């Protein structure tokens, strides 16, 4: 996993609630057996029409917006457990997703793929939307060591939670599986006792 420390970036505002993983990456693109190349189909059916032409109103097609942070309404990533959603978001170039509420499975998948889910208050997310609408070049800074996010133009900050072990993994680029593989003997001992 890629390491994460402090990131200052512009944002892509997706002011929609309950964005489900079927929208993030539709099922028909899940047939490939590798992890690469999903970014091209990220939000496929919102981003392109049936003929494959970009939908002008959709935020990923608006050249004014860019950066490594996706900002969305609450209940982001609900629905299917497909990790392809996190792969698509990472492959597109996002390192952070900001929302007032994340669906549990998506949050875990993001954390396992170097995409930091930053859960902050609805008010703070509304402030990001407002600032970015005023000026698409607005930057935010996500500081993982101090667990704070700042809207730099407005000088507003808020703290976010992350499990301390997951934070340690993120800063150092460790995967969960490395730890699990290192305690095989304990797992075998558990099996014997059961």
């Amino acid at each position, binding site marked *: 996993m890629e390491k994460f420390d402090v990131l200052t970036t512009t944002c892509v505002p997706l002011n929609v609630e309950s964005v489900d993983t079927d929208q993030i990456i539709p099922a028909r693109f899940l047939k490939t*057996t590798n992890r690469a190349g999903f970014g091209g189909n990220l939000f496929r059916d919102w981003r392109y029409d049936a003929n494959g032409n970009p939908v002008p109103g959709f935020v990923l097609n608006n050249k004014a917006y860019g950066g490594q942070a996706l900002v969305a309404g609450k209940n982001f990533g609900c629905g299917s457990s497909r990790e392809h959603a996190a792969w698509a978001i990472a492959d597109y170039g996002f390192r952070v997703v900001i929302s007032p509420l994340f*669906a*549990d499975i998506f949050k*875990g998948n993001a954390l396992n793929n170097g995409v930091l889910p930053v859960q902050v208050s609805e008010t703070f997310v509304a402030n990001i939307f407002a600032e970015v609408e005023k000026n698409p070049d607005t930057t935010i800074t996500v500081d993982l060591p101090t667990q704070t996010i700042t809207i730099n133009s407005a000088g507003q900050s808020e703290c976010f939670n992350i499990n301390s*072990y*997951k934070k340690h993994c993120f800063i150092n680029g460790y995967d969960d599986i490395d730890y*699990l593989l290192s305690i*095989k003997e304990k797992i075998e001992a558990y099996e014997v006792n059961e």
Partner: protein
Amino acid sequence: MKQTLFDKIWERHIVESVTDGLDVLYIDRQLIHEVTSPQAFEAMRRRGVKVFRPQQVTATPDHNTPTLNQHLPVREEASRKAIEALRQNCNDNGITIFDLNTEYNGVVHIVGPELGLTQPGMTIVCGDSHTATHGAFGCIAFGIGTSEVEMALATQCLLQSKPKQMRITLNGKLQYGVSAKDAILYLIARLTASGGTGCFIEYAGEAFRSMSMEERMTVCNMSIEMGARGGLIAPDETTFRYVRGRMYAPQGAEWEKKLSRWKTLFTDSDALFDKEYTFDAKDIKPYITYGTNPGMGLGIDEAIPPDESNIKALEYMGFRAGEKLLGKPVTYVFIGSCTNGRIEDFRAAAKIIKGRKKADNVFAYLVPGSKSVERQVREEGLAAIFEEAGFTFRQPGCSACLAMNEDKVPAGEYCASTSNRNFEGRQGAGARTLLVSPLTAAAAAVTGKITDPRELM
């Protein structure tokens, strides 16, 4: 210390507590299918790691499988390759696979319970959010991503934080013509599509207690549509009767030993939950969704509420606030999926369809959840009832629930569907899904419009 059912199962499966509430949780059973496992096997090959306990893993291809002519090679190349990759990975690693066109193939969450792989007190995972289904047996069962599929294959464990706990008590009995599907759609509408986020749900009360195992599976299946990672119901005589004698169920002395342990799986009185809700079953009528998440539901005779947050959804669905769905034409019907693809669902559909004809304007997918369900539907004469009415009874798979195979609903068309998600494009790009019970779906199939099934019973 008073414990919930969830506490009891969770604690027994802790290999070690790491830090900050993170536990190494032992997984008793892993189920895999062709969509979310190939990248896990690939990553293990790269790491040089082998499957740790192949006998605790079971596979079945389901998402990509065609529902007609399963004896022929799968036509779509990408789907065929995904299924071949699953087969190869299972053969290479000594994992049992219930392959396409064999006796016990089917949707992973239907196959697990019907073969007795799902047993009370277990931890069960699968790279599929509807793993919640298995909670009906008093299991901690939840969906995981592919990185976690890899972890469970490599170590039989996952690193997990214990979720919050919610209890939903449904008192009383469901009324005539109201099914388990209506009950769960009602609960999701009341608690919203994110009402259970961060939680595991225990379903309690007379209504769930008096349900069959298949009905309980329908309820637990849709826990994820409330945002809950899973839902569970304490095992009882109904559960034990269902499990006994199945292919993988414990036998003889082992059965007795397991049974006495299973009988301890209940929530202690006075155990505390983070959230508690109580509802009355008599308030529930046939339910239907009008929007693009499963929380946008209403009683079949009710009008769509005016709500600013619905605008995008109503535009997609082609509905207006204040309208009723009753009488709206539908052109597609889907009866099947891990939510409603079991024998009782087809019996319910047959009750409505018997002696009637398929509406001319309707194209229907009737898709059993497994080969076993398919056989039973034929043996009980239900397939004949469907065929006489003008329907095609198909072969098992996930089918039009997520339209990964050829079973799709075209853009702009309405589908009365017994599946679990009405997201935009879920049943095909541009398709409009109305989630309903098998009774309501069957009623729409014979009338060509949204109909209260109680009028046909």
